[in-house]
């Protein structure tokens, strides 16, 4: 039998009882809807989290003093390490490291006109911060020789004070428990960053200056760095490099506590959890589909029973077992395709509706739709195997005798 003819036979039987056909595939439609909605919710969750963390550079290792004092479940106190120029040198000479930028952060008060605000100021080495110097919006970046210059984030410039700040303006910054402030000149304003990082607060609220300027402000000759940013040469080798970074530091800080931290491993962990959540949700849909599949088996069995006589006639005029099998398999497969299409359309609609009404991040992707459709077709096709075989094996004489 030709495939077109098999299709024609199936379509003829479809058109003769549209309503029953649709009702029978309701289970599958609901299953497919469930899969699409679940996957979309999962995908949306993943995208949402991805956006929150997406701006993070994956090639950065952050080193900071102190750490968890627990080792193998026991409390072990270790003095926090104090990082200085020696550490910077050691890290710069570690294999796989591209740049090393030591930073020191400090809480301060900023005065502009009559307004006083709490700010945090970060001292950097001007020559070692390519990422910052590349994201200057107005003005220029710091120079190592600067003693009273600052570069500010876009929110500081536009939102913190009544009047927007521009390069060339001066603000006074003082150590909180110190009366005397110091005048700083704004030399540059950073571009607005899209995300607010999950760690380290709002990156548009930062103020950068040089280490020398901060030392002057704090009135100290020297201080230890509160963190060192290490950018690696190859992001794919970051685990190895971080191990080497750890080795280099361990030599200098034998019994001291410090932490080597990679955003990448955190992101990977979160990603894994989200993927699991997504597939768990999809699994709920799959269960719905299996229930729907059992419904299809039922309905197809009913169809076979109803058409016993017809199957007898088909066999009497020359249909082989394989012909009968093909017709019934095609019928259930087509049922799956139609229900699947209805299911993914409805599922996409419901997902969009939920996301609009509930302002939940939901992302309908082609992959989710394809998975939904595929599962719908596979379930009905598999569900059709048993009824189709039963139909194919009918004894022609007995089938013809049926009423």
């Amino acid at each position, binding site marked *: *039998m*030709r495939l*077109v*003819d098999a299709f024609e*036979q199936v379509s*003829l*039987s479809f058109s*003769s009882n549209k309503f029953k056909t649709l009702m029978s595939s309701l289970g599958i439609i609901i299953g497919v809807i469930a899969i699409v909605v679940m996957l979309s919710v999962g995908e949306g969750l993943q995208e949402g989290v991805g956006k929150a963390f997406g701006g993070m550079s994956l090639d950065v290792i952050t080193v900071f003093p102190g750490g968890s004092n627990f080792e193998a479940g026991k409390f072990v106190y270790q003095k926090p390490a104090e990082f200085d120029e020696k550490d910077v040198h050691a890290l710069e000479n570690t294999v796989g490291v591209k740049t090393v930028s030591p930073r020191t952060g400090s809480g301060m008060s900023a005065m502009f006109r009559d307004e006083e605000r709490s700010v945090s100021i970060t001292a950097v080495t001007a020559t070692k911060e390519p990422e910052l110097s590349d994201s200057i919006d107005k003005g220029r970046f710091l120079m190592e020789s600067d003693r009273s210059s600052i570069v500010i984030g876009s929110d500081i410039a536009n939102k913190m004070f009544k009047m927007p700040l521009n390069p060339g303006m001066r603000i006074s910054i003082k150590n909180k428990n110190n009366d005397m402030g110091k005048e700083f000149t704004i030399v540059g304003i950073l571009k607005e960053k899209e995300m607010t990082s999950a760690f380290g607060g709002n990156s548009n609220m930062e103020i950068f200056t040089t280490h020398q300027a901060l030392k002057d402000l704090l009135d100290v000759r020297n201080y230890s760095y509160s963190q060192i940013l290490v950018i690696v040469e190859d992001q794919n080798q970051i685990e190895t490099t971080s191990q080497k970074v750890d080795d280099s530091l361990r030599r200098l800080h034998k019994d001291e506590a410090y932490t080597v931290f990679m955003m990448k491993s955190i992101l990977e962990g979160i990603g894994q959890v989200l993927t699991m959540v997504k597939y768990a949700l999809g699994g709920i849909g799959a269960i719905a589909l299996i229930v729907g599949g059992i419904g299809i088996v039922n309905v197809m069995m009913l169809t076979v029973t109803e058409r016993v*006589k*017809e199957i*007898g*006639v*088909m*066999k*009497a*005029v*020359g*249909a*082989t*077992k*394989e*012909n009968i099998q093909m017709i019934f398999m095609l019928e259930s497969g087509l049922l799956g395709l139609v229900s699947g299409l209805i299911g993914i359309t409805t599922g996409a609609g419901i997902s969009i509706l939920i996301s609009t009404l509930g302002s939940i991040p939901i992302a309908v992707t082609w992959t989710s739709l394809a998975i939904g459709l595929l599962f719908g077709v596979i379930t009905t096709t598999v569900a059709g195997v048993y009824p189709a075989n039963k139909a194919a094996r009918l*004894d*022609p*004489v007995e089938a*013809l005798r049926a009423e």
Partner: protein
Amino acid sequence: MRTILAMEEVSKSYTLGKLNVPVLHNINLAINEGEFAAIMGPSGSGKSTLMNLIGCLDRPTAGKIMIGDMDTSILPDMELSRIRGKKIGFVFQTFNLISRLTALKNVELPMVYQDISGAQRVKRASELLGMLGLGDRMNHKPAELSGGQRQRVAIARALANEPEILLADEPTGNLDSKTGQEIMQIFNNLHNEGRTILMVTHDQALAQNCDRIIRLKDGRIEDGKYG
């Protein structure tokens, strides 16, 4: 004269639970090409069982059934389907048309399983229906046709693949005598065209039209002489 069908020592019994129910006993029968034979016998004598065996709808318990030079009793299912489709044309008492298909589609059906193209099928099916006087009823469904018309559709379907043998199991059994006569006339015409026909009937008058009457009683052939 070529023998088109030969049955040698064919027996058929059914098993009902543990009970063995013999229906046909050592049937020997030969049908020649172009012959029109009637099969008669009391109800339950095994006429339909015999027809089903010849038509490859069922297999004998013992014995050989030769159609042409093939022993159908040992053929695999696939081959039996092929013979049913190509060499046998079956006409039933209850018509056995598919109710959701039009007359034309019903006649096309045997050709569908022989991979004949749609255009050719329509051509052949409408020729046959036209020949049987149903040219204006081709797109009617069985429910919209009279008994006689339905049986004519069934005859057209049986002829679709130019079978070697036409089997008819009480084709007039569900028809009034006038319509029965008309159907009988169709079989006579087919016989005159040279077709081989085997027909079960209870009607002695109709049987008189045939070359030969085979009488079955209790699963045995009582009398199969030409006459």
